[in-house]
């Protein structure tokens, strides 16, 4: 008999492969905070910069996702960059201009912009 647990495990496997299908295994994953607080601090503009960079082809091999609020109220908007084999880098107080810099320097050239890092 197929149990609810069997069904949910199958759903999990399907979910994982769908996420991978969306490019999760790209070498770089970018997460932008998109909760009420983050958006109020301007994160939707930041999100747009990343989205545009990807859709216009300037940025490849990057998985972009929104995320909820982690609770760093005074440093919002926040952006995280997770690269396989490296420690996650978290940026705070990101503006659209800084987002462009993150694309040009961090995502394209691998330079961590230490002044903006939250630790």
């Amino acid at each position: 008999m197929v149990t609810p647990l069997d069904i949910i495990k199958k759903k999990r496997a399907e979910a994982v492969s769908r996420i991978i299908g969306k490019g999760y295994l790209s070498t770089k994953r970018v997460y932008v905070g998109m909760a009420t607080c983050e958006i109020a601090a301007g994160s939707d503009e930041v999100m747009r910069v990343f989205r545009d960079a990807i859709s216009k082809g300037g940025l490849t091999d990057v998985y972009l996702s929104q995320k909820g609020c982690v609770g760093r109220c005074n440093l919002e908007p926040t952006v995280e960059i997770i690269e396989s084999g490296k420690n996650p880098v978290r940026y705070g107080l990101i503006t659209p201009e800084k987002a462009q810099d993150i694309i040009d320097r961090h995502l394209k050239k691998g330079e961590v912009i230490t002044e903006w890092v939250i630790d």
Partner: protein
Amino acid sequence: MGKEYVVTLCEGPSCIHKGSRRLRQLLEKKLEKHGIAGKVRTFLSGCLGMCAKGPIMVINPGYVIYGGVTVDDVDEIVEQHLIKDNPVARLTVKESHLYNRFFRVFGDAKFFGKQMRIALRNCGIIDPESIEDYLSLRGYEALAKVLTDMTPEDVIEELKKSGLRGRGGAGFPTGLKWQFTRAAESDEKYVICNADEGDPGAFMDRSAIEGDPHTVIEGMAIGAYAIGANKGYMYIRAEYPLAIERIQKAIDDAKKHGILGDNILGSDFSFDVEIKLGAGAFVCGEETALIHSIEGYRGMPRPRPPYPSVKGLFDKPTLINNVETWANIPVVIIDGGDWFSKVGVGKSNGTKVFAVAGRIVNTGLVEVPMGTTLREIIYDICGGIPGNKKFKAVQTGGPSGGCLPEDFLDTSIDYESLAEVGSIMGSGGMIVIDEDSCMVQMAEFFLEFTQSESCGKCTPCREGTKRMLEILTRISKGKGQDGDIEKLERLGHMIQKASLCGLGQSAPNPVLSTLKNFRDEYKEHIYNSKCRAGQCKAMLSYLITDNCIGCGACLRACPVDAITGNKKEKHLINQDICIKCGKCYEVCKFDAVAKS
């Protein structure tokens, strides 16, 4: 060769006992010796919840967990793992608790290291609008497990074992509440999620829903199964449009997957959730008022008993829990009540989320194991008070809570300890106050809130809070009278005892606790017309000192022409005209305007 590793050592009480501090000293010495001290960072964290396998060491990137590490293992870890990138297999332990994932992404940041994220385990690491993201992190596995091999009684037993208590304010044992609601006989029952979140300055529940809506739904479905309900309501304030949108999407997606609706995951259990919007009245967070509001009546409380578990929504047995309580449920099921009960202290198990605000360097959401002290949250996690100011007080529990001075900073955060010192856990608001704030005004602020939110049904709350507020306002206006302090105390105790619901019963708390802990400030206001924080305008006067060079800046800035004086001569403020707006103080470049 040799990545930029971050080594985290667990500094929970159990790991310290097993020698984690000695390990760290030794590790740092070895790093120095091998010349990689600059490259590898060491970091201390709060309890990681793996006490049985301590001392615990976590190495990132890679999230390799070492357990039972001794001083003899340090050389091998440094040489093999940190220099040659070969993790030491014999020391690794497999841990798959639900909260681990958060730690993996954020564990090495100071603000998060001392935290333990159980309720908020997915907030900030998944896309809240993607059911795939939730499913991929073992989402809905707890519900499936319950439907596959647990009876409702098993679920309640597990919950009782966990010792989880309500996170909405009162701290009632959740397992017992579920048991009572299960025991109540009826053809129909309901579950409700209380997402009214009315405390000023609190935003834990909003963040939880916006960051991980499916967790709350999963918790509710498990609750419904346990008590025998098929219908749930999510009561959420209309001021939270994004949270509403996300919870609606989560409900729709869950339905598409057969996780809500009829015959969930092929079982014979059916459950559906409907959203009800509240219009932002504080009292509607009180469970009986909330139930009235869902029924379409005015949101007013009624006496209990009967409790909602016996007679609730539409007079049927109803299980009502707070958002954060619901978010803990899947963890209790997956990681087990035993594990959960080991996190925390005494009769307070698990973690609590706080929204820390006020005069603090890092404002934000903090989830810590019960038993963490106020000092650890304020100084270690949130970075202390900005601008070299002195800490004065911390208000926990919002408008229903109390104000604690410096002497209480080492109070452990748990239901009992906070109550003992005259405050409450409440729903998780935490406001930090520095020396620039006036305690009379603080009390006035909170009472103004509860007074205007009083629904008016019972006299002690309706009239009593009004009279108390009048007295407080009088004191802060410099018109306090002999006997006012005693009157406030008498009224406060009466309102606490005689009010119908928790709103009135707790409304005097900020006043009574400031009277207890900051009585001198009240006295100074009443008897010496003095506000030491310089906040009460009526007690403040601005004076021009001999530093004045007669530049005329203040004269031009004064909106009511209270300042006179010739150019290059000392100016004068006419106290009868002055409205104490402070403009002159702000514009003076020569330190010549004094507050007194």
